[in-house]
Each structure stands twice: as structure tokens, then as C-alpha cells.
């Protein structure tokens, strides 16, 4: 019985993220439009896009290989699994133990790996640009992310997201400099990883500036749809990650009652909305930076992460 219930919750979460992801993106687009004194696309536009793309036939370049066709599903699967592993409204999900923060990062890494390969598959110059830049960004973003993980893990003594969240809820935490640094670093990494302004502009197709989009140029129809969905999932994932780690309030503990879980969902949606607003504000208020400034941007994130770790030792050994 309990197993069924657990399975249900797990499944619920997976469906939830899947459903919420487009909505979040739509919400952000809408907001950005508003901030720019525009009407902005309707809130549900992403769903419509998805459905339209799904119904279209997929056009493949002549020399596209099997890898090109498999990649979208792999990317989607990896991202989805990763997103499913991050506690959204409840900790202690059935399979929460089957992976930890490092695995989540690695899953996103494999998604990127295959996407980059797909970008090079057709053999167009833009695909190459996209892949190469994407990997360059990743080489800086990933270590930064690992540093953040270190900070949190050393803080909580665990890389297990549920126990992390649990620890963050506990009074033992208090206010910590390193946690703050980690938060800033995490936000920066999240921006970079999701190709948001100032790193990359998801809305642009201006050849020389695009990174993520350049890899997708050759995709169309259902493949494009799946990949887009994966990208939205990723955004959602990062937001829920920040949420569950740094503002874990409202998370339903393991074996919680349905009531708590409902409140959990509510809190979760509230967090998403909040972070969406923040992101939209941020994106409208800054300009995109040149591609080679990115290294400095992410380098800063990496430094912050490392600093967080070191400070952690200081504070730890002092107290």
C-alpha cells in the first residue's frame, strides 16, 4: 500500500514538473513582455507551440545520422529524470535516494553532451559554433556547480537533496556566509546553464551571438518540441533546486499527510512564480555580454563557490 502511495507521489512529481515547465516559461515571457511595455505572448503559448511542433513532420538533413534522431529523446529523458529527482513539493520521495545532487548535475551534463554532438552531426558551421561555445561554458559552469555542491554538502554533511533540504529546515543552519555565496554562485550558474541573458538570449536567432539555439538549428517538428521541453524542464529544475535548498519552507517531509503535500505544492508554485518574476526582472534590466566575457562571469561563480567552501572551514573550525 505504502509502496503504491510512494509510487503515486513520485509519479505525481514527475508529471507536475512536466506540466509546469512550459507554464513557467510562458509566465516569464509574458512578464518580460510586460516589463518592456509590450503585450507579451499569452501564458499558454508554450503548450500551443509544443502541440503544433508535435503535429508537424520532422525534417532531417540528408546526412543526419541515427545519433541526430535519438538525441532529443535522450536529452529529454536525462533532463526529466534529473528534474524528477529534485524535491519540489515533498522530500523523501521513493527514488530520492537513487541519486544525489552530483548525479543531477551529471545528468544535465550528459544531456548537454549529446546535444552538443547533435549540433555537430549535420556538419554545418552554426552547429559547430553552438556546440563549441556550449561546451566552453560548461567547462566553467560544471566546476562552479560542483563547488556549490561541496559547500552545501559540507554544510549538511550530505549530497542527498532530501537530507539537504531537511538540514536546511533544521534550526542548526543559522545564517551562513558560505551559504550566501553558494546561493549567488548557484544563481549565476543557473543563468549560464539555461542560456539566459546575459549569457545567451533564448529568443534570438542572431547567428553570431547564439549558443544554445545554434545547436538546435537543424531540428524541427517533434524533435524540436522535445528539446524545447527539455530546456524548459531544465529551467524549472534549477529554480526548484534553488527553492528546495535555500528556501525549503513548505516542503512536505517524508511520509507526510496529503494535506501537507497540498500545501507543499502551493508553496512550490509560489516559489516558482517568485523566482520567475525575479528572472524576468533581471533579464529585462541587463544586456547580453560578449561571448568571451562569459568565462569571466563563470570564473567569478567558480571563485565564489571555492570561497564558500574555504570560508566554510573557517566558520566550522571556529565554532
Amino acid at each position: 500500500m505504502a509502496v503504491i502511495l510512494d509510487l503515486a507521489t513520485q509519479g505525481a512529481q514527475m508529471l507536475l514538473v512536466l506540466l509546469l515547465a512550459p507554464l513557467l516559461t510562458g509566465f516569464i515571457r509574458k512578464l518580460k513582455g510586460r516589463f518592456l511595455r509590450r503585450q507579451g505572448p499569452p501564458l499558454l503559448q508554450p503548450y500551443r507551440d509544443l502541440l503544433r511542433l508535435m503535429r508537424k513532420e520532422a525534417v532531417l538533413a540528408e546526412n543526419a545520422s541515427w545519433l541526430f534522431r535519438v538525441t532529443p529523446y535522450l536529452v529529454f529523458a536525462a533532463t526529466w529524470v534529473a528534474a524528477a529527482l529534485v524535491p519540489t513539493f515533498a522530500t523523501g520521495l521513493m527514488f530520492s535516494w537513487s541519486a544525489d545532487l552530483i548525479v543531477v548535475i551529471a545528468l544535465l551534463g550528459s544531456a548537454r553532451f549529446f546535444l552538443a554532438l547533435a549540433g555537430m552531426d549535420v556538419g554545418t558551421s552554426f552547429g559547430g559554433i553552438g556546440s563549441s561555445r556550449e561546451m566552453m561554458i560548461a567547462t566553467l559552469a560544471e566546476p562552479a556547480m560542483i563547488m556549490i555542491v561541496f559547500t552545501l554538502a559540507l554544510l549538511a554533511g550530505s549530497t542527498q537533496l532530501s537530507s539537504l533540504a531537511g538540514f536546511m529546515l533544521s534550526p542548526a543552519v543559522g545564517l551562513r556566509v558560505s551559504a550566501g555565496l553558494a546561493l549567488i554562485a548557484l544563481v549565476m550558474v543557473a543563468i549560464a546553464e539555461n542560456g539566459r541573458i546575459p549569457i545567451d538570449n533564448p529568443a534570438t536567432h542572431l547567428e553570431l551571438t547564439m549558443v544554445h539555439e545554434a545547436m538546435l538549428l537543424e531540428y524541427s517538428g517533434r524533435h524540436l518540441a522535445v528539446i524545447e521541453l527539455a530546456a524548459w524542464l531544465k529551467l524549472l529544475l534549477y529554480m526548484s533546486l534553488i527553492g528546495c535548498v535555500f528556501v525549503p519552507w513548505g516542503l512536505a517531509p517524508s511520509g507526510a499527510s496529503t494535506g501537507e503535500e497540498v500545501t507543499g505544492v502551493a508553496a512550490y508554485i509560489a516559489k516558482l512564480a517568485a523566482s520567475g518574476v525575479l528572472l524576468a526582472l533581471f533579464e529585462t534590466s541587463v544586456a547580453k555580454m560578449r561571448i568571451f566575457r562569459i568565462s569571466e562571469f563563470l570564473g567569478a561563480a567558480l571563485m565564489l563557490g571555492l570561497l564558500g567552501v574555504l570560508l566554510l572551514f573557517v566558520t566550522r573550525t571556529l565554532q
Partner: protein
Amino acid sequence: MTVIAELWCVGGLLGIAVLAAFIGNERGATAALYSAALALSLAGFLFALHHLLFGAAVADITLPLGLPWVGAHFQVDALAAFFLAVVNVGGAGASLYGIGYGRHEHEPLRVLPFFPAFLAGMNLVVLAADAFSFLVAWEFMSLASWALVMAHHKEPGNLEAGYVYIVMASAGTLALLLAFGLLAGPEGGYAFDAIRAHKISPLRAGLVLGLALFGAGSKAGLVPLHVWLPLAHPAAPSHVSALMSGVMTKVAIYGFLRIVFDLLAQDAEWWWGVPILAAGGGTAVLGILHALMQNDVKRVLAYSTIENIGVIFAGLGLALAFDTNGWPAAGALALTAALFHVLNHALFKSILFFGAGAVLTATGERNMDRLGGLIHPMPITSFAFLVACAAISALPPLNGFASEWLLFQAILLSPGLPHWGLKLLLPAVGALLALAAALAAACFVRVFGIVFLGRPRSVVAERAVEVDRWSQGAMITLAVLCVLAGILPGFVIDAMAPVVQSVTGARMPAQASIEWLSIVPVAESRSSYNGLVVFFFIAASASIAAYVIHRFASGAIRRAPAWDCGFPEQNPATQYTAGSFAQPIRQVFGTYVFRAHERVEMRPPGDPGPARFEVKLHDLAWELMYTPIANAVSLAATRLNQLQFLTIRVYLSFVSFALVFLLLVLALWQ
């Protein structure tokens, strides 16, 4: 008795080597000899595995060979058994590959005799249980591999490669020799048992550590002792490159383990982990950065070997740090991670070199910028290669990730260490490793993307055809092993438990019993990873998505010319090349690491001539270390050489000066 069985295998291999010297040129000899080598390697592997799994007693035997009053001691304990397994699995793979690949060899007599000898040498290093036999086997291994590097001695650069290799190798051997000299003591107790019994002063122990780090490190390819590796490994025939990169470096690591973790165990000090960690971290990052800058496939792979060696050494340093600071449990975790990575690297690096070899036979090209699009003519090869790329880039659920994950888990235990230095050093090393991992991903996206994807960049690439079944078989088998080790890491860890137990005195909790076959380094609340479930989830969700879409949405496909943002370009030269792919990363790291500077030479407007772009990279290890040494030697040689051209009178005056000098000594000596 495992040791005897293993020795028989070695004897068999040597026999094959001798036989090969005579029948090497016969028709069908190649296949026969490689098959024999394959059989023996498999036998060796099974014996070792049996010893490892069923925890047989430490087997020991002394033959009346080698140093007369010491004899040749051979021993198989858990550690040896593990490395025997690694060596022989690599050897078996290479032999299997060789059955097919060997046919393309022009001068089989330059390869066939030395290949089994090389295998035998590596086995012997692991089996040896006294200093003399160890060094003999060690140097024999170097020698055999040198001969294999010289197999294609007419190709430009190979002579230099072989020379640098053999000199570095013997420098390393001399370092180990000195180390053993200190360990054995003036009475010359060269047997490992005697050495274990013989306690030495802290200073000397430190010295031994340094020498071992130099000796084993130079063979394994620690920066800055790595310079020979990217020259020699690519020069050899590909299956030999696979052995050298995948297996021989591991034998070097075995040597280091044996000396520092076993023979020196009782003399270890708390700070010993520090230099190893530093070397490991630095090596990892520098190695992979170099790899990203290379255009020769095999060279890239060689440099990536250096990176992985760095990772392994970092793991060893971690283990030593934990051990020497009285935390064997953590040490066990770190050591497990390191050993796991040893196994993994042996597996996927072999596949990668096999793949490179396959490409070489199919196209005759090693330069990435003349390849491309090989995924179409060579589906099997490219698939195996892809798996290996994903594994070496530490992507879940493959084996590379499992070991890296364990390593990170070990690093996360650093706060438990008493010493400040270590506390602060470990996270830094962790950052380096993370950086290395990310760069590795970039590096292998580059390799696979440029070589196998896109459009052919040359005629040879267009004409490529898939390689023979044997080679495919070898690659696929190893790929399967990669996947298995990735999704069922628990069993591997348990298999390594006795090794770790024997070395650190502690072991990781038994994994096989944990539900759902996930692995738990310390405690589940802390961290756990389940490759199987992740694999299952990914497979499930991918196929569900695919099914749903094809079922309910469109499954239609239309082939069309590439869109390429509206202006497609037919010339494959417009694709991203290896160089251009690496350019952003070169921009970021190059200036510090390679003193890279780029020079663009644009024609004036209206001039139809092509623009030139060139990049200069420097390997600082060469410029700061080796060139000065070489210059010094050559200077000394030139100066001293003038003594060759003197007159007899001057030579006589030397004699008389010597005489007068000695007489003076006598006169003044009390």
C-alpha cells in the same frame, strides 16, 4: 595456487614471443599468435578473478632465478590479483583486436614477438615480490614496449618518440632502483617481506616516497614527467597504444601502490598525501587541456590518459591522506574510487584506441581535420567509440561516472581531517578534478564530433569502410563491460573490497546486499547512487516519450538539405574543425597554460588570396625542464669533447698531474 597458474601464463606468453620470432612471417601466423595470446590473457584474467572473488590465500613462490641469494619471489595477494585482472582484461581485448588489426601490419616481425613479451612483462611486474625481479620485469616491460614503439620506425618522429621514451623509462627505473636500495638497506634484503620488516628513518622514507613518485610517475605520465607519453603512445600500433595507455600506466600505478602503500606503509607520515594530491590534480587539468589542443586523434587520447592518471593519483593521495591521519574507512573509500577508475580507464581507453586504430585502418588518417562523417560507414565502431567517450566524460549511468562520483564522495569527507593544510587542499583538488571532468566532456565531444559526425573532410574519409569483425568484437565487448560496470558498480566495489582491506585495513560497506543494488559509500542519508535505476529511468522515459509522440503525434520524416540558418554551404571545409572547436577554450586557458598566441594574417580588401591563421602553443614542461637539461648535456659533451683532440704531450701531462696530485695527497695526508 594462483601464482603458479599465472606464472604458467607468463611462460606461455614468452613462449609465444619466441615462437613468433621464427614463424612471424608465415601466413596465418598473425591470427594464430594473437589467438594464443588471447587465450593466455583470458586464462590469466580468470585465475586472477577467481583469486579476487573467492579470497584465496596469499600465494607465494620462490624460484632460483634473479639475484642468487634472494631468488625470484613471486606472489599473488589481493592487490596483485586485482591488477593482474586489469592487465589481462586489457591484454585479452588487445589480442582479440589484434587478430583482425594485425593483418594490416606491413612488417609483422617487428610487432608479433614483442606483443606477447610486453604482456608477459606487465604480468611479471605485478607478480614480482622482490626488488630485483620487480625491476627486471619493469624494465623488460619498458623494453618490449619500446621495441613496439619502434615498430614503425620509418615514420617521421617515431625515432625521437622512442628515444625520449626509453630514456625517460630508464630514468624512472633508476629512481625506483634507488628507492629499493634505501628500502632494502645495506645488507641487501631485497625480498619484499624483508623490506616490510626493515624499518627506515623518516627522512629516508620521505626520500623513498619522492623517488617512487618520480619513478612510477614518469611511467604513468604525471606532469611534468609526461612528455614521452604523447609521443610514444601514438607511435605504436593502435592495439599496443591501447595497452600502453590503458594497461601499462596502470602497472605503473601498481608499482606506486606497492611501494608506498605496502612496503612503506609503516613509515608513512601525515603530509605524504599532499604532494601526491597536488601532482594528481595538476596532472588531471593540464593533461586534458593539452588533449583539447591536439589534432592527432591518438595524441588526444594519450593526453587524456595523462588526465585520468592525474585523477587516479588524486584518489591515491586522498587515500593516503585519510590513512595516515588515522581514518582508514575514508581511506578505503578513496582507494576504492581510485582502483575503480583504474579498471574503468583500462576499459574505455582501450576502446578509444581501438577505435582510433579502426579509423586509421579505414582511412589511413590520424589527423582529425581530414576526417569526419565516419558514423555512416562505420556504425559499430562509432557506437563503441561513443559509449567510451560518454564513459570517459563521466556521464551517468556509465562506469566513468561511478568512479568519479565515489571520488567526490571521498573528497567530501575532508572536514574530518585534523590538518589544516589537507582540509583546505582537498576542496581545491576537488575543484581541479571537476574542471578536468568538464574539460574531458568538451574534449570528447570534440573528438567524436569531428571524427565521426559532420561531413567527410577528405576523400579518404568518404571512402572509409567498417573494420573487420574481430576488431568490432573487441570494441563491443569492452563497451558492454563499461556499461555493466556503470550500472552495477556495487559488484565491482565488493570485488575490490579485499584489495582495499589488505591495503588500508578497512573496507567500504558491502554493496551487493543493499536493496535495489545501489551503492552507499558511507550512509544512505549521506549519499547514495543507483546506476541501475538511473539507467532504467532514462531508458524508460526516453522510450515512453518516443512511443507517446510516435503514437499520438506525427511520426513522419522528410529528408532535406541542411537548413543552416538559410544559407547552406556545400563545401565541407566550412564545418567547424578541431582547431576552431577548441578555440574558445584556448582563449580561456591558453594564455596561462600554453603561452598560446594566435596570428591572423588578413589579405587587404580585394585580394582574393586566402587569409592565414596560425596558433603557437608551448608545452612548458619541455621549455622549463627538458630543453635546459638537454642543452646542459650537449654543452658538457661539446666542451669535454675537446679532450679528444689533444697531443700526446698533453695527455702525458694529464698523467703526470695525476701522479703529482696523488703524491701531494700522500704528502699532506695524515
